[in-house]
């Protein structure tokens, strides 16, 4: 496969990476051609991030060789790998939020004046030129980074990488927080870079995107190398089964739910609820035992609705009823007392308590609800933790493992467990499958449906992925510009209809 060595820019051969007690990578190979977009795929915990970190010098490999442009390298720090031409743009933008755009691009290598002082005007002009010429972005580079949305920050991170003359650009889940339009723009830039001969390693969980932008794929499973393939010769279903290590049938993933909308009593009612600038005159009913979707683009106000329900945001007008009784909401605790639970969108910031154990993370909400002096005995804590670890099939070495050491999918399961432990009547899942591997994703989707059908729990499912809504929801509210546009019921729910509704072309019956 590797006869023609000129064609390749990077060979990683027989890479082993051992952490104390864990073999994170076992005999993994990775070959990158010049000017290709290469995807690295695998379920969470398969070793994608570890492999990238070995390449960029965050970790030092235990065994194996890395050959870059024909010579062996062993980068010891990210800076070292950057200097030889390997740059990374992470999922969470690794720039300084309170420096200006230009400062972020040139930090550490600022243009200097005669006296060694920073030449600000040159720096700003260069930054402006760089963004405009390379990426076609025209923005004020003297504004602080935080002024711009995450999508723009990512572009700026890419600009910085390009300007450091990188030969390999690693994009680690760059699209997970981008809208479709922003993603399209990113892809256009990627194609341009590719044409310049830059090799791109693209990590993403979105199959659609992989097939749109990538040439080849290397698949990892449980820290082992499965194979590398040309994407045009690899049907999706095969890709998934290689990642999961088992045969999957198409309808396993696309399984349809019972679309009948329950007619029972309302768990939650919103009557003309308004939150200034966040939620516009919203009226809705959530019925007992249904999975209801909130569909819409990023920033359309889906999360704000969820946060209003949970009491993170407070309404200025309208009434909220729980189980038919009007309630006043001042804090999340009020809603927790009404048996409403909320798994927030940003797992790292709003979800996990990193340095606490899985057990402590699971019992936290329940304990908060019970108050400080109704302490749960340790034996009960253990029992609860074990129960949910088992129920949700959370992969942990034991319940005392720190949650920050789990993979994203398993962290998400712990957060869901935290809320299930409070035995809610209404569970809000805000983007529960973002950045999570296909296997866990399917599990979480199935769980939502099961909770509704078997336990009579109501679930609000928020996702930017249409397919997911189609698979799980029996009713979908379409949100645009902080307003409910329409409602799709039962068989009306399909990817096409949701898209049309968001675009404003489908009205169903509101």
């Amino acid at each position, binding site marked *: 496969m590797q006869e023609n060595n000129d064609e390749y820019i990077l060979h990683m051969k027989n890479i082993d990476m051992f952490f104390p007690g864990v073999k994170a990578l076992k005999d993994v190979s990775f070959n990158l051609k010049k000017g290709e977009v290469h995807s690295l795929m695998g379920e969470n915990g398969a070793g994608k991030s570890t492999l990238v970190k070995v390449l960029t010098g965050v970790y030092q490999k235990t065994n194996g060789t890395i050959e870059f442009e024909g010579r062996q390298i062993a980068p010891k720090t990210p800076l070292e790998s950057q200097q030889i031409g390997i740059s990374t743009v992470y999922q969470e933008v690794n720039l300084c939020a309170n420096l200006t755009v230009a400062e972020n691009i040139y930090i550490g290598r600022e243009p200097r004046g005669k006296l060694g002082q920073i030449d600000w005007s040159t720096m700003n002009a260069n930054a402006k030129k760089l963004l405009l010429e390379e990426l076609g972005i025209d923005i004020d580079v003297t504004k602080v980074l935080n002024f711009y949305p995450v999508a723009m920050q990512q572009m700026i991170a890419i600009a910085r990488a390009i300007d450091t003359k990188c030969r390999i650009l690693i994009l680690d889940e760059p699209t997970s927080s981008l809208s479709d339009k922003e993603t399209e723009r990113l892809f256009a830039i990627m194609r341009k870079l590719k044409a310049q001969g830059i090799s791109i390693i693209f990590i993403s969980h979105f199959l659609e995107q992989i097939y749109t932008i990538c040439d080849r794929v290397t698949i990892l499973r449980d820290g082992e190398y499965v194979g590398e393939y040309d994407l045009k010769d690899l049907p999706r279903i095969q890709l998934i089964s290689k990642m999961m290590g088992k045969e999957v049938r198409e309808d396993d993933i696309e399984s349809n739910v019972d679309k009948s909308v329950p007619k029972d009593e309302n768990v939650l009612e919103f009557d003309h609820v308004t939150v200034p600038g966040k939620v516009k005159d919203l009226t809705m009913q959530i019925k007992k035992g249904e999975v209801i979707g909130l569909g819409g683009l990023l920033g359309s106000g889906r999360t704000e609705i969820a946060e209003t329900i949970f009491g993170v945001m407070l309404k200025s007008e309208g009434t909220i009823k729980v189980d038919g009784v009007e309630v006043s909401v001042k804090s999340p605790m009020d809603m927790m007392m009404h048996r409403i639970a909320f798994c927030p969108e940003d797992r790292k*910031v*709003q979800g996990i308590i990193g340095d606490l154990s899985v057990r*402590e993370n699971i019992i936290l909400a329940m304990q908060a609800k019970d108050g400080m002096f109704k*302490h749960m005995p340790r034996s009960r804590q253990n029992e609860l933790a074990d129960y949910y670890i088992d129920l949700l099939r959370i992969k942990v070495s034991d319940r005392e493992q720190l949650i920050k050491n789990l993979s994203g999918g398993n962290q998400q399961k712990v957060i869901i467990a935290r809320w299930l432990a409070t035995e809610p009547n209404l569970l809000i899942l805000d983007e529960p499958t973002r950045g999570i591997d296909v296997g866990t994703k399917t599990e979480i989707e199935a769980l939502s449906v099961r909770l509704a059908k078997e336990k009579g729990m109501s679930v609000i499912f928020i996702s930017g992925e249409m397919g997911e809504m189609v698979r799980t929801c029996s009713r979908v509210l379409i949100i645009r510009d902080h307003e409910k546009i329409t409602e799709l019921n039962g068989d009306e729910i399909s990817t096409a209809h949701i898209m049309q509704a968001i675009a404003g072309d489908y009205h169903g019956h509101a």
Partner: protein
Amino acid sequence: MDMLKKFSQSSLALPFTALALLLLFNAVFVDDFFKIQVMDNGNLYGRPIDILYRASSLIILALGMTFVIATGGIDISVGAVVAISAATCCLMLGGDISGVPAHPFIVAIIAALCAGIISGIWNGTLVAKFKIQAMVATLILMTAGRGIAQLLTDGQIITVYYKPFSYIGGNIPGVMLPTAMLIALCMVLLVLFLDKKTSLGLMIQSVGINQTASRYAGVKVTAVLFAVYIFSGFCAGTAGLIESSLIRAADANNAGLNMEMDAILAVTLGGTLMVGGRYYIGGTIIGAITIQTLTTTMYAVGVSSDRLPAIKAVVILLIITVQSERFKQMFREWRLKRADAKAKEVSHA
């Protein structure tokens, strides 16, 4: 062997070893260090007792500080609060030379503790309600506190002649151990109770690690922050009673001077990180005792008091370095290498 391994991996291993080494040094170089006698008046006397006795105030302050630091905050006002509490107590008792207190003793004690709690409420309001950075927020009271104490005592040093007042810093007649030690013991028990039998510990750590996520999980972040600063104020109030009773007077300028720094040091020596999160009560107590042992040892081997701070600094530097992540990592790498070398030797043979 298993026990040893378990111990070496526990969080208390390093603080404990540091203290043990200090004690070992004493055992070798100081005569009769561990000798404890019963005095004529029935009190116990000896260096170990003396160390625990003198460490009492520090232990109490450090306990409060542990919770504050675990939430990611800091309370640098405790030294000044000690002065406020001392001034309040002495003011209530009055400086009547005949030894008749102006107010009942119990009222004076409660007033002093309340002064501490009010200081805590002040700090808590600034940090929890107004979201001012803890260092800045408590700096205000650190600066203002001694002024407030001066105002209370009208700029005078009030000397209290009321006899039972001296029992707090000394011995209650007929009790073998110094009262300060007993008070510290009670505080330790109280803290252990809060830690083990309520969920306060979980809430504190959770707030210290990730405030936003804690809020989303329903933890009352503001209430938790309030609670830790009030508790720290209460601890400072208690320490103020001991400190003033020791000299039977309220000295607004010197009571509790620089004690906040020793308290912070005790917490860090105990293994709790300044960024917040996991805390170690046992470590804090050992840390406080270590600091006092160090001082006592230096005096015992004849280091003069003006050289004491320099030598103390060197020893603390050593302890802190050994505990640092970098050092631990270097140690681990060294051990791995040695194991490798051994394995090679075996395979060659």
